[in-house]
């Protein structure tokens, strides 16, 4: 059945309710809500969540925004937590201790801190062991919950509170880790990189594939943070669009090892377009710092080309 946004929203009630306490304009709630909408209405889900913005804003005792079962324990172990839940499900179902006619799905959410960094080991372990689960990283490019400290997902030159743009060191000096490729190295049945763009079709379809592909699947979703990135809150969808149209955040998937790029901009925009509206890159636009933009552009171009090559290799 072809994707129809209005139908999806009208017919599938939100499983991530209002009344959460994420910042106004946060990019993460629309992502989480739409991913959960990809669940079949009759299926139950257990969600685990790493400590981070999303967790501390959606389950503040005694209120929870999650209509499915939910578990949070710590920062670095959302994958191990859900792996344990899934193992229990497999065991109990095999023993006939759970209803046989009912499906439960397992989804973990973590920010880039809980996924790229402190939770990488737990994630890698769970993926390698082959649990039937989806891990979703909502990547906002820094440790936003503790106040915008750099992470390995933070792009080069970004001004964060632990990589401040100073007079000697102009922001973070290391390029961003490519986590999607790290997960590709696990040879998973499904890996997707996506964003909330246009009518959320890419996000929804990738979520649906990840949830309903048996085995360990991974989604990496760019999720802008108005406070951490320094843009007006109402610009969320413009930032998302620029991330895609500049090829800063390419939309692609890896199905059983085969790369498919889901969107190739007809007119690839220069990276300045993405950088300029964000205060964290402000220093890059000072006279004399043109080299920073050039270097950034080069990095984006190299990675985009690599992706095109990988896709082509799969077509041979």
């Amino acid at each position, binding site marked *: 059945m072809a994707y129809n946004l209005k139908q999806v929203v009208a017919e599938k009630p939100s499983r991530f309710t209002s009344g959460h306490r994420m910042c106004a304009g946060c990019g993460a709630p629309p992502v989480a809500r739409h991913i959960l909408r990809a669940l079949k209405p009759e299926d139950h889900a257990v969600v685990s969540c790493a400590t981070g913005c999303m967790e501390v804003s959606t*389950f503040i005792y005694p209120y*929870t925004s*999650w*209509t499915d079962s*939910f578990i*949070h*324990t710590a920062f670095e172990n959302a994958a191990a937590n859900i792996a*344990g839940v899934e193992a*229990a499900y497999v065991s109990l179902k095999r023993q006939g201790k759970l209803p046989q006619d009912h499906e439960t799905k397992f989804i973990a959410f973590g920010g880039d801190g809980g996924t790229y960094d402190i939770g990488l080991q737990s994630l890698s372990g769970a993926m390698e062991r082959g649990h039937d689960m989806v891990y979703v990283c909502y990547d906002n490019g820094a440790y936003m919950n503790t106040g915008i400290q750099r992470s390995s997902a933070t792009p080069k030159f970004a001004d964060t509170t632990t990589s401040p743009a100073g007079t000697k060191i102009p922001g973070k000096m290391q390029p961003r880790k490519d986590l999607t490729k790290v997960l590709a190295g696990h040879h998973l049945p499904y890996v997707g990189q996506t964003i909330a763009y246009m009518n959320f079709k890419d996000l929804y379809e990738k979520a649906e594939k990840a949830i309903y592909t048996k085995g360990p699947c991974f989604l990496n979703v760019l999720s802008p943070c108005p406070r951490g990135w320094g843009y007006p809150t109402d610009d969320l969808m413009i930032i998302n669009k620029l991330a895609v149209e500049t090829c800063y955040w390419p939309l692609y998937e890896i199905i059983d090892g085969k790369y498919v790029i889901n969107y190739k901009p007809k007119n690839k925009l220069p990276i300045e377009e993405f950088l300029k509206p964000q205060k964290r890159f402000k220093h890059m636009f000072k006279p004399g710092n043109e080299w920073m933009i050039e270097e950034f552009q080069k990095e984006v171009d190299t990675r985009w080309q690599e992706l095109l090559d990988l896709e082509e290799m799969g077509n041979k």
Partner: protein
Amino acid sequence: MGIRERLSGNEAVATAMKQINPDVVAAFPITPSTEIPQYFSSFVSNGVVDTEFVAVESEHSAMSACIGAEAAGSRAMTATSANGMSLMWEMLYIASSLRLPIVMSLVNRAVSGPLNIHNDHSDAMGARDSGWIQLFSENNQEAYDNMIMAHRIAENKNVLLPLMVCQDGFITSHSIENIELIEDEKVKEFVGTYHPEHYLLNAKEPIAVGPLDLQSYLFEHKVQQSEAMKNAKKVILDVAKDFEKMTGRKYGFFEGYKLDDCDMAIVCMNSTAGTTKYVVDELRAKGIKAGCLKIRCFRPFPAEEVAEALKHVKAIAVLDKAASLNAAGGALYEDVVSGMFTSNIHVPTVNYIYGIGGRDTKSTEIETVFDDLATIVKTGEIGNPYRYLGVRGGNK
């Protein structure tokens, strides 16, 4: 009655786990507990148990997976030692705060550093405030029996706390001794099935576990945990009574060995109690009234009961197999002394740190402790209360 066998402590625990047949085991190898997941995974591979075995990539994930599995509504178990439990640290506190009755076998070993793979109690002692019930075992039989009783205690509605069964690394875990096992069917019936009231996999009642618990709530949740730990005392005794009916083997908070009429007593835990009992017998043969109090239940700590059991003694030595590095005595010593003080019982009591990093503790050394106690009884002088046993150099 029972099945006579010869097993190591690790084999005994693995056998208990096989008979308990938990739904999930998540574990990571670490000396000297490695054999437990090894034996257990062979039970899984050969279809002897119904368990899903999760071969995690770390102990942090072992406890995280156990938490997920237990919250999901299943019985989850694990085994570890020393640094393995150190890596679980964060999750130990979370497991107990979420009120998940996970059962763990802790094969006691010195926590680094420097690295040492041999026995002391620094791993368990560090976790004494983590909200886990801690049962100690003198030998393979007790490690087995404690394991069989564990779920009945942990899963009791008035308790709902995780539980660790401790035994001494190598000394107990790798020594093969006689043991009396219980028939599989009897274990199954004794342990019973697990029916949590609320659990993640109940699609009819989705729940949320592990909130951000701010200033208005965390204190009350900690009081709940604290009260559950108090409730555990009665449950531990009740379960022991049922266990005695089944096996004839008697358990309490502690074992008094020739304690009732003794003048001098050693308080200790795990395998050292075996050595101490041997020395007590030798001294008794010479007409010296020595006795031993072996703690089985360290958390909850039976402070009043211990104080009551020791009130008639003229001098006490508490042996701690972990250095607390606090300039004020080991963990067991502090608990015994504060329990006695609170009960307004004042007996000269000294502390010995001993056996660190697997240092052998011989019967002759235990004898010197009783000699020291005899001097204290005679002179009434305590001298330095914070002593070492079996270390080279000064400040014995």
